[in-house]
């Protein structure tokens, strides 16, 4: 357990001394996972809403596709994104491989079905008669969605939490498409893996602790938002 203790000491030291490299890695982590989550929210919430509210041919198939996408292995997403973005792959001309943009793409692919799936479940659990009531208030399609999402906000926030949690903690895809380039695409998880493979467990533990602090504070604020005014 010395390793963990040393890791904590090292983490504190890094935080206090505002180590430039660690700071940069932390900011990049936030930036990449934040933007990816934002994209997945923009894609996932409307998608989940449509799946929850409309009945069309192939809906059942799409629902299982989303549920399945929720379990899409980051490694597989990483591999597929990698194959798409390579120089001679279909999107090679964009030259995005081994850049933060590539990581954002892969993470958004991972998070979108998560957000969509949980948004769907949240909206399905809104009283179906309330949906009719909202329509009868004269709401446009957009206002309707807004109000329904408001009613399902508890579950939708859980969806966002899950999406963000899924990507900030992910390593396989980020490693593959980002390449863990120092000062450019190195994020907290990939840096941790590198430190482990270097055998510097203290540093790995320190980075883990920073990652945990980071995700804990974000999760805590999201869950505060979610639980506000909801006592059992």
């Amino acid at each position, binding site marked *: 357990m010395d390793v963990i203790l040393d890791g904590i000491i090292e983490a504190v030291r890094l935080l206090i001394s505002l180590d430039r490299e660690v700071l940069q890695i932390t900011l990049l982590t936030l930036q990449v996972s934040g933007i990816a989550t934002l994209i997945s929210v923009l894609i996932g919430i409307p998608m989940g809403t449509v799946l929850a509210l409309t009945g069309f041919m192939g809906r059942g198939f799409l629902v299982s596709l989303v549920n399945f996408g929720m379990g899409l292995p980051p490694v597989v997403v990483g591999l597929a994104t990698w194959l798409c973005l390579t120089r001679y792959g279909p999107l*090679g001309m964009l030259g995005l491989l081994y850049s933060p943009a590539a990581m954002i793409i892969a993470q958004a692919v991972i998070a979108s079905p998560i957000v969509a799936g949980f948004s769907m479940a949240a909206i399905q659990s809104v009283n179906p008669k309330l949906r009719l009531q909202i329509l009868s208030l004269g709401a446009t399609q957009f206002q309707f969605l807004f109000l329904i999402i408001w009613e399902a906000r508890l579950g939708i926030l859980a969806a966002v939490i899950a999406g963000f949690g899924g990507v900030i903690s992910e390593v396989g895809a980020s490693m593959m498409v980002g390449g*863990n380039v120092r000062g450019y695409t190195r994020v907290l998880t990939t840096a941790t893996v590198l430190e482990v493979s270097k055998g510097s467990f203290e540093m790995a533990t320190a980075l883990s602790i920073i990652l945990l602090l980071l995700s804990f504070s974000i999760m805590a604020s999201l869950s505060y938002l979610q639980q506000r005014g909801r006592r059992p």
Partner: protein
Amino acid sequence: QKIGPEPAVRDLILATTTSTVDSGLLDLLHPVFEKKTGYRVKTISVGTGQALAMGEKGEADVLLTHAPASEKKLVDAGTVINYRRVMFNDFVLVGPPKDPAGIKGKPSPEALKTIAAKGSVFISRGDDSGTHKKELSVWKKAEVTPAGSKWYLESGQGMGATLRMASEKEAYTLTDRGTYLAQRANLNLDILSEGDRELLNIYHVMQVNHEKFNKVNAAGAKAYVEFMVAPEVQKMIGEFGKEKFGQSLFFPDAGKE
């Protein structure tokens, strides 16, 4: 004090093996290179197999690997050019300090024979890496076919992870000296067999052929190769690790074929 004009294509993709990165060597060299030339090196540290595959597909600009036999195929096919020797270190057989199979001091093929005879646990990387290939060639020399035996485990992971597993399981394994030295503090393993001629671990740097792959950053790759074999860089390689481990992790080797 940068030399030459601003490069046309700034990004340079280097595909290399984990050992060069994990040892920290490239973290020392690349800032110097970047400052000097203005390129940004994107170091992708992967298994040797993947590094070579990336070269074969033109996905990397320059390669730094340690599997001469496999590299030779790329050179012969014209996939890579400007193939230059950079440095070497060596492979060593490590195992628990108690040395249950009693291989201490034996030359490597004999040591492996003893391990097989005693049925002591041996951990192979099993990942087609340079180290794995070297290990297989030693088994061949020892005239043992270990695959499928109960005492022969394939970790399917990098050197660091494999060393840790060996340490945990009190098993033997073949490792490059650099990684072993870097990790030694966390391991309960000793070097038991070393110094054989065939256990040399030679690193080569090479440019991916821009005539075959139009997207390859030829100028950058050339600059990188020249950089690695430049005398002052060779000196840095030789000094690297002396301070921390009391000995060099790599020995500069440029120009000797």
